[in-house]
């Protein structure tokens, strides 16, 4: 009984919070949200020094203009800027620019009637808040004292909706500001520079109506050209109220605010993380199918390609990309085969046999993992030249196999150790020799670990860049990682071709990697730690 009262009391408090937030939001929207400055009249006066005769004359003229504006009821101020220069004869000259600036503010409410895109965002935010409050009321009334765990379906749905709507309102506040920046700076700029053709007049008429009360008329281009604006931060003050609504919504729905918030933050973190990781891939995809003009567009006109040019793929194929992919396949495939052919017996010996120098060899394996081919580049280049493997795919196979050998042994040994030797012993009793028991018994059982190793070595060899770029000089022998650099020479980077080729180089490996993700990590660390 007491419990029911406590819950009912909490729910009443939450409802009150909804109503207070709504009322305060209404108040906040009547505060000035944006402060604008726009030049209504400018006059430049050359060969004028501050304080001289000409200055006084022009200043009086400008003041008279300002006075006229004031008489018509506009709030204007006069500002001046001085540019001093030395002319070709070595004399100091000075130019004074006068400007009559109109300053005004707009409240949040005034946006609603403006017909601008941001008005709809603001309206949506307000509607979300009102509906959130309504849903909360509908969900709470009739089940005021009910435990959160035993709500009937309808009130539960209403209560959930109130929280979700409050969250939506919260997110719409920054969208409102973004929208305003976009409309009043970016879109105006695009129209004034005549970069986008349609809709200018209608849009400028709306801005005239909203900003200047329709008085600018034909001067609207000039007025908007000098438009400066900054937000006063007033609308940001809605954020805490929307947040309070959301918390109240969580309170009436789940009881425990902390738990829900922690879960919410968890999801928010994961979503942001995933978007951030995927961002470069989005850029690659979008840029790969643009036209050259669009990849180098310094006006930043289009977020997405206006026309998806899949012909770019044909262009890069004509430039030999298929050949590079084939080379990469050969190099990575060959390296993988060699690394496994050498690595499996070694890993088997390390896992199953006792011999002198085992720990020395293990130490050597671990240490040789430390040597990247890059530091030894000079030595490798000389060695390859001495072996007459310069500019050859076979040379790259061997080097990649050698530098992945340690990793292969490490991963494979970990797999073999984790499999009990009993089955092999049984096979031996049945008359199998060591090789037979390895091939027929151990390898099938170790298949997941072997596939992991195989893919890992393959990917490392596929992505290798430095050694190949040094050793390969003939174009037709290049692997894809080196091949894509032909699209970015110092004079001109063909971004669309570069990224189209990059996509082809990336997609297969990413898919392969996703297949082994689960097995790979356990192999990586267990091999290292258990030594």
């Amino acid at each position, binding site marked *: 009984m007491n419990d029911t009262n406590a819950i009912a009391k909490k729910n009443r408090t939450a409802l009150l919070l909804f109503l207070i937030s709504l009322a305060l939001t209404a108040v906040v929207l009547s505060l000035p949200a944006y402060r604008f400055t726009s030049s209504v009249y400018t006059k430049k006066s050359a060969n004028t020094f501050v304080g001289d005769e000409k200055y006084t004359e022009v200043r009086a003229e400008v003041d008279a203009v300002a006075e006229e504006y004031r008489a018509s009821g506009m709030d204007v101020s006069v500002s001046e800027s001085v540019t001093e220069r030395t002319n070709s004869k070595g004399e100091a000259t000075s130019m004074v620019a006068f400007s009559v600036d109109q300053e005004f503010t707009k409240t949040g409410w005034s946006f609603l009637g403006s017909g601008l895109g941001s008005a709809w965002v603001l309206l949506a935010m307000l509607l979300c808040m009102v509906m959130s409050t309504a849903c909360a009321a509908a969900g709470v009334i009739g089940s005021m004292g009910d435990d959160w765990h035993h709500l009937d379906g309808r009130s539960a749905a209403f209560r959930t909706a109130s929280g979700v709507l409050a969250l939506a309102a919260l997110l719409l506040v920054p969208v409102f500001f*973004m929208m305003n920046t976009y409309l009043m700076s970016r879109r105006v700029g695009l129209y004034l520079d005549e970069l986008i053709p349609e809709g200018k007049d209608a849009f400028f008429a709306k801005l005239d109506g909203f900003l200047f009360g329709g008085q600018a008329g034909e001067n609207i281009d000039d007025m908007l050209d000098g438009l400066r604006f900054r937000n006063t931060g007033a609308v940001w003050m809605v954020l805490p109220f929307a947040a309070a609504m959301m918390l109240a919504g969580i309170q009436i729905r789940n009881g425990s605010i902390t738990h829900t918030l922690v879960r919410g933050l968890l999801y928010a973190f994961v979503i942001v993380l995933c978007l951030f990781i995927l961002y*470069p891939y989005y850029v690659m995809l979008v840029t790969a199918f643009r036209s050259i003009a669009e990849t*180098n567009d310094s006006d930043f006109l289009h977020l997405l390609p206006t026309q998806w040019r899949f012909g770019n793929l044909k262009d890069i194929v004509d430039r030999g990309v298929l050949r590079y992919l084939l080379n990469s396949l050969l190099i990575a495939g060959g390296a993988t085969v060699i690394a496994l052919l050498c690595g499996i017996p070694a890993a088997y010996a390390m896992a199953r046999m*006792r011999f002198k120098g085992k720990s020395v060899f293990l130490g050597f394996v671990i240490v040789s993992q430390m*040597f990247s081919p890059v530091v030894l580049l*000079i030595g490798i280049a000389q060695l390859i030249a001495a072996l007459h493997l310069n500019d050859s795919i076979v040379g790259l196979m061997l080097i990649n196999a050698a530098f992945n050998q340690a990793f292969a042994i490490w991963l494979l040994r970990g797999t073999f150790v984790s499999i009990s030797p009993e089955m092999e012993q049984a096979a031996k009793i049945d008359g199998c020799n060591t090789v037979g028991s390895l091939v027929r018994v151990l390898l099938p059982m170790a298949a997941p670990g072997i596939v992991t190793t195989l893919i890992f070595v393959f990917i490392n060899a596929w992505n290798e860049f430095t050694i190949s770029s040094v050793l390969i000089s003939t174009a037709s022998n290049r692997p894809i990682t080196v091949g894509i650099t032909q699209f970015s020479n110092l004079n001109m980077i063909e971004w669309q071709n570069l990224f189209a080729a990059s996509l082809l180089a990336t997609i297969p490996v990413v898919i392969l990697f996703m297949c082994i993700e689960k097995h790979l990590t356990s192999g990586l660390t267990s091999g290292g730690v258990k030594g």
Partner: protein
Amino acid sequence: MNKTLQNKIKPYIWLLPSIILMALFVIFPIMIVFRLAFSEVSKSGLMGGFVGLQNFKDAIGLPAFKTVMLNTLYWVISVVGLSTVLGFIIAMVLNQKFHGRKIARAILVFPWATSLVVQASVWNYIIKYEYGNLNNILLNLGIIKEAINWRSSYQIEFLWECGVGIFVTIPFVAFCVLSGLQSIDGTLYEAADIDGASYWDKLWRITVPLVKPSLTVSTVLNIIYVFNSFPIIYTMTRGAPANKTDTLVTYLYMLNFYDRQKGPATALSVIGFLVLCICAGVYMVGVMRKEEEL
């Protein structure tokens, strides 16, 4: 008698292919580099007589030597340090149970699986001032009013390079930590809960000590990988301006293959190699001590 001899030799035969492969392509280049470093080397790479430490003196005397060494230090410390911290946090989050965890983990694999040249090229395009995608997206979403110059000085460019380094290194750390986290016995936390331990207590007393081995492995391997990382800097700035953004690896590449100063380049190679050897040594001592405990 014959049988025992055979049994004694057998393991070495199994090891032989692997040893030959590594000896030829790992040990041999190391020897070549060492020999070159102490010899007179002509511009075409021909080896002359023994010159002692002359090449090392030349290398240290290069105007960019100090900058490059400091850059290498900043590069390794910032990339390894930050990616370890961030990777740990991300692994902790991805270890929770939530909807879409598998998708999130699959996405986290992306940077790890992508070639560094490709990654560096994409980021290079993203941060271009005149037409890059970051300015495009921020302008068209109305977040900024005008295009921002994201690479206004070489210090900032170097920071971007470090950022890309961190971006590509995080997945490796995160997956290493995740595998460590998944091997922790859940009953430990239940016991701690019964004892009334707080979240932070559990983190510092249970999670961190048990994940430490995985974290050590990933940190040491990362130091090696990051120290040797070449494509990011090569693609984004090529060390410009005047080697101010070079690290040891990119610098020795430029010295050797562009400037044809092969003597100092091999000396730098040996210096880099010795630094790696010290890391390897520290790591080995750690592994050996671990083995004694087990």
